[in-house]
């Protein structure tokens, strides 16, 4: 939204935004791994993952106030700051989360039952993925190193970031991508916190959105999220378009589903991490 005016936000706000985005990614991927386990009936693992996720939610509540949706972004910066004491707690908790996830991710990547239900199921080849316009972990699991974070928005330009890529294109590859992204995301959070610059967290933005257009691509946990906004100088925007990652990933089901076994349908549909309410706009 700041691109409409345009205003430049402070470096601290950029780092804080990155931190919260990555924290939300950790929570989203943990949630997804739990749901995947649930989809093929591995109930105990489902709850184990959600137990770890609870720690992430506590961190979110401590820093942002809300448990799932941080709602810290405002036009011009962020609403909350992270104090040094909070920083310590966050670093300790992230350590615990990393240890606990490591234990469980090993189960996911090595267990016979998990492999049986995911390896070779719902394959999307690299060409198909590009042709169908997949985004996010689905695209990366098919061997395309594409990620909106590579456009270096917010603080990603200063952080050590490499997209996680797998080549198989099946449900197992998508699981691996998300599992590895959890650890990457924890690393990014720690890096963002250690490099956190001093300064203002928000700049004041005055007036209504001017007559201007702005486009923004960000990498949400599910994939690339696209925003378009057009202002006309009045209080309300003339147009606002949001394309959610699920909308982009849904066509890939057309090549994943035909010919599969009925019992695999939940796992395949879940493997694109669908959010139907986001898609329906």
């Amino acid at each position, binding site marked *: 939204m700041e691109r409409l005016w345009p205003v430049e936000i402070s470096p601290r706000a950029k780092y804080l935004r990155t931190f919260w985005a990555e924290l939300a990614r950790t929570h989203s991927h943990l949630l997804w791994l739990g749901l995947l386990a649930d989809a093929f009936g591995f109930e*105990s*693992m489902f709850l*184990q993952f959600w*137990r770890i996720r609870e720690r992430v939610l*506590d961190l979110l*509540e*401590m820093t942002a*106030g*809300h448990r799932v949706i941080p*709602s810290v972004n*405002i036009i011009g910066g962020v*609403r*909350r700051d992270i104090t040094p004491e909070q920083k310590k707690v966050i670093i300790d908790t992230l350590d615990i989360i990393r240890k606990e996830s490591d*234990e*469980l991710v*090993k*189960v996911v990547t*090595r*267990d*016979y*039952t998990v492999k049986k239900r995911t390896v070779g199921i719902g394959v999307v080849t690299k060409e198909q993925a590009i042709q169908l316009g997949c985004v996010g972990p689905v695209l990366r699991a098919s061997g395309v190193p594409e990620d909106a974070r590579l456009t270096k928005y917010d603080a990603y330009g200063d952080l050590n970031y490499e997209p996680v890529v797998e080549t198989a294109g099946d449900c197992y590859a998508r699981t691996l991508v998300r599992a590895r992204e959890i650890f990457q995301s924890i690393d990014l959070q720690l890096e963002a916190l250690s490099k956190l610059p001093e300064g203002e967290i928000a700049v004041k933005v005055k007036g209504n959105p001017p007559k201007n257009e702005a486009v923004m691509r960000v990498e949400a946990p599910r994939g690339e999220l696209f925003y378009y906004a057009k202002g006309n100088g009045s209080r309300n925007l003339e147009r606002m378009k949001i394309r959610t990652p699920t909308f982009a990933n849904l066509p890939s089901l057309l090549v994943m589903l035909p010919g599969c076994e009925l019992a695999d349908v939940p796992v395949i549909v879940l493997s694109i991490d669908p959010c139907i309410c986001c898609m329906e706009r």
Partner: protein
Amino acid sequence: MPFMLPTILKNLFTGYATRLYPVQVREPFENARGHIRFNEDKCIMCGVCAMRCPSVSITVEKKKNELTFYPARCIVCEVCIHACPSDAIDLIFKWRTPFYEKPVEIYKSTRIAQLRETADAATDAATDAAKEEESAKEDK
């Protein structure tokens, strides 16, 4: 299964991961967004909060000196808190307890009420004075 074994064994010998909820309650964090409360002494019924609220949780009727708040709609986004020109909205970090019926809270601004009272008193006084004058005229 063998890979899950360490986790299973650990779980066997550790306590519950959950809390005995109604008995044991975890305190919310210091700046958690529990709910919001309006301060009747500070509110001036300007209606900015109602205009800005993304979930239409507030309506302000200045004529009636009434601010109606629908807590069930509120997502505690803090927009109104930062928009309020007279700092009349406080963030309370405790969560609301569950409810059976959607609550509706009505607030009245004390400042406006006072102003109205003095204004009413003034008009009353004015009408009284006018009446007296009239009766005085009639007497003449």
